[in-house]
């Protein structure tokens, strides 16, 4: 592996849970990087240049090579900086981790976010779906310290938004999705996750997240 001359940059947006995943991954692996904040509502030429296809953050730039998509960036980090692995090395375990990572994004995240962006019947269905998906994750979590076992792994990072952002969404949307009494494994996992040194210091402030997502909810409700 050639030594990098241009270093590692991460282009992100302060409140994006996708960006947080990558930051945590880098911290867990002890990777030094330069963080570049981007206003996603007023995109700079930089972002259009390094991610012309989707225009979204996060984008990792390593040795001048840009790479978007949080789950793909995490797999890349694992392959280039192979100490402190996030994904299991065993092929079957790896496939399972990828499966649940995809589930976390496509099912848990999508339904929970929809509950913030909607009201009435659509919101009710979104909440019901989110709870159903969390039931799967509760079972999958199985009472271990983390989804990755004793250490934080790929699935923990992909599910991470549940630990600190979902409670804010629930408050903004006035719904309950993760009731601790109904999800004891996930409730315990949440505490383990946010207390971990690589995660703890770097979370956005709760009140700032609340104001931001309250604003986003208003925008989305106006569009309906």
């Amino acid at each position: 592996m050639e030594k990098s001359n241009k270093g590692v940059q991460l282009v992100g947006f302060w409140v994006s849970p996708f960006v947080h995943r990558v930051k945590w991954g880098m911290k867990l692996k002890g990777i030094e990087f330069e963080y570049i904040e981007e206003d996603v509502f007023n995109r700079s030429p930089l972002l259009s240049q390094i991610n012309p296809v989707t225009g979204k953050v996060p984008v990792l730039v390593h040795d001048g090579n840009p790479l978007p998509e949080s789950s793909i960036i995490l797999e890349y980090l694992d392959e280039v900086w192979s100490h402190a692995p996030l994904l299991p090395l065993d092929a079957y375990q790896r496939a399972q981790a990828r499966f649940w990572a995809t589930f976390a994004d496509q099912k848990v995240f999508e339904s929970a976010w929809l509950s913030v962006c909607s009201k009435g019947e659509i919101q009710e269905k979104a909440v019901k779906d989110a709870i159903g998906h969390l039931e799967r994750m509760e079972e999958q979590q199985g009472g271990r310290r983390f989804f990755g076992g004793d250490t934080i792994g790929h699935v923990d990072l992909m599910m991470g938004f549940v630990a600190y952002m979902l409670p804010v969404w629930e408050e903004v949307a006035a719904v309950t999705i993760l009731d601790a009494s109904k999800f004891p494994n996930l409730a315990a996992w949440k505490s383990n996750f946010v207390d971990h040194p690589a995660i703890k210091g770097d979370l956005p402030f709760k009140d700032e997240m609340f104001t931001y997502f309250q604003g986003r909810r208003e925008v989305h409700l106006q569009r309906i």
Partner: protein
Amino acid sequence: MGEVKLLGGLGFSPYVNRVEMALKLKGVEYEPIAEDVKNKSPLLLQHNPVHKKVPVLIHNGKGIAESLIIVEYIDQVWQEGPPILPKDPYQRAMTRFWAKFIDEKCIIATWKACCSTGEEQEKSKEESMEALKFLEDEIKGKKFFGGENIGFVDIAANFIGYWLPIISEVKGVQLITEEKFPNLWRWMNDYCNDNFVKGILPSKDALVERFKSK
């Protein structure tokens, strides 16, 4: 290397076809098991209880679901066949990016552009054009997305290469033409006429019948 079964084999699904391509590229012997989506087998419900969908690969009694996850699994387990993903980490990551783009943007938009109506269809047609432009740029100067040989992105793009032109014909919605997308057009022809791919694709007539009824 152990017993391999493919649930959904012998069918018409492009997602199952991706797995069949990967297995055949690596020369893996497997047992295809047909599935009736209206009457799901106990084996399917056991090995993919979450989504209850094909394809599911069962290797040594353990089930793996989601077509692209299965293809990566095959690439990792059967090292002696040709590599499906590149070895270089950045190339691998970009390969995964394009496969995800095809799944999340191209397939959904082009399917809706052909099969929906009214405003949804118009919006989907626009989205399709935008998405396909990126693929057009990506294939420029390359025989396959994987370079000289078929790779992960070519496998992921099987719907674009073979299923989409058939659906387009049946529904009368032209998306990929030689004038608008000359490079993608050329790739589609190379892909569908490739001896290896040709042998694995389901019959055009059978697909036409299926889409006529949708």
